[in-house]
C-alpha cells in the first residue's frame, strides 16, 4: 500500500545509483569529500583548494562577511575557519525567497601534511577569503645533481 510512496520513479532511482557510483569512483576516495570532517555539499561557505609545489591555497566563497571578525587558525596541518554572517532582515517586508545563509559557520580542513603552519597569509576580496599556506622547504621536490 505504501510502496508507491516510498519507491522513486525508475528514472530517478537510476540517476541516484549513477550518482552513488560516481561518488565511489571520484568522491569518497579523496580525504576531502570522504574525510571525517567533510560537510555535506551546499554548506556555507563553499571551499576550493589548490596546490602548487610551493604552497597550498584555500579559497572560501564567503560573500558579505566582516573579514575582521573571521577567526582563522591552523594547528599542524588542520585549518579551522569560523565566523558569522549576519543577513539584515527587514521586518516590514514580504519575503519570497530566503536562500542565502544567515548565522555562524565553521569549517575544518585537513591540508596536505607538508604545509608549514608558521607561514600563513590571508586576504579578503570580492567576497572570497584566500588563505595561502607555504609548504615546507624540505618537502619541495629538489633537483639532484649527478657528480
Amino acid at each position: 500500500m505504501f510502496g508507491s510512496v516510498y519507491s522513486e520513479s525508475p528514472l530517478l532511482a537510476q540517476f541516484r545509483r549513477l550518482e552513488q557510483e560516481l561518488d565511489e569512483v571520484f568522491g569518497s576516495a579523496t580525504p576531502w569529500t570522504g574525510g571525517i570532517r567533510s560537510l555535506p555539499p551546499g554548506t556555507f561557505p563553499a571551499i576550493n583548494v589548490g596546490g602548487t609545489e610551493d604552497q597550498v591555497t584555500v579559497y572560501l566563497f564567503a560573500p558579505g562577511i566582516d573579514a575582521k571578525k573571521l577567526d582563522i587558525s591552523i594547528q599542524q596541518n588542520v585549518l579551522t575557519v569560523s565566523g558569522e554572517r549576519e543577513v539584515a532582515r527587514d521586518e516590514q517586508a514580504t519575503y519570497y525567497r530566503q536562500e542565502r545563509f544567515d548565522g555562524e559557520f565553521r569549517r575544518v580542513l585537513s591540508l596536505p601534511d607538508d604545509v608549514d603552519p608558521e607561514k600563513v597569509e590571508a586576504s579578503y576580496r570580492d567576497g572570497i577569503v584566500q588563505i595561502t599556506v607555504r609548504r615546507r622547504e624540505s618537502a619541495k621536490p629538489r633537483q639532484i645533481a649527478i657528480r
Partner: protein
Amino acid sequence: MTDTKNIATQATGDGRNALANATPTPAIRPLVDIFETGDGITLRADMPGVSKESLNLRVEGPNLLVEGTIGIVPEQQMSALYADVRSTMYRRSFVLGNELEASNIAADLRDGVLTIRIPKRAELRPRKIEVRT
C-alpha cells in the same frame, strides 16, 4: 550543422557570439533573497568573486538577467585538490512584473553580494483608501 552556423552568422553578423549564446557555458545559480516593500522589490544575490567590472546586468523584455564571472584566477601551475565551486560563472534570470519600473533599477555590489532595487511604478504603489463617513 554548417547550415545552422551560417544562419546564425547572418543573423547577428558575428558567428562566434551567436554560437556562444546558443550554448551557454555551465553556470552556478547564485543564491538569492527577494523581498517586497511598499515601494519596490529588493533582490540580494551571493556572487563571491565577482567585481563591478565582471558583473553583467541586463533587462531583456520581461526578464532581468544577472551574470557575473569570478575574477580571482589561480596561478597557472596550480592543480585543484578539492573544489565545491566548479564553474567560474554565475547566471540566473528573473521575470519582472508589469508593475515594476525596469528602466529605473539600481544595483550595488559589495564584498560579493549584489543588491538590486526595482521600484514599483508610482501609480501602482499601494494606497491607503479612506472610507468616507
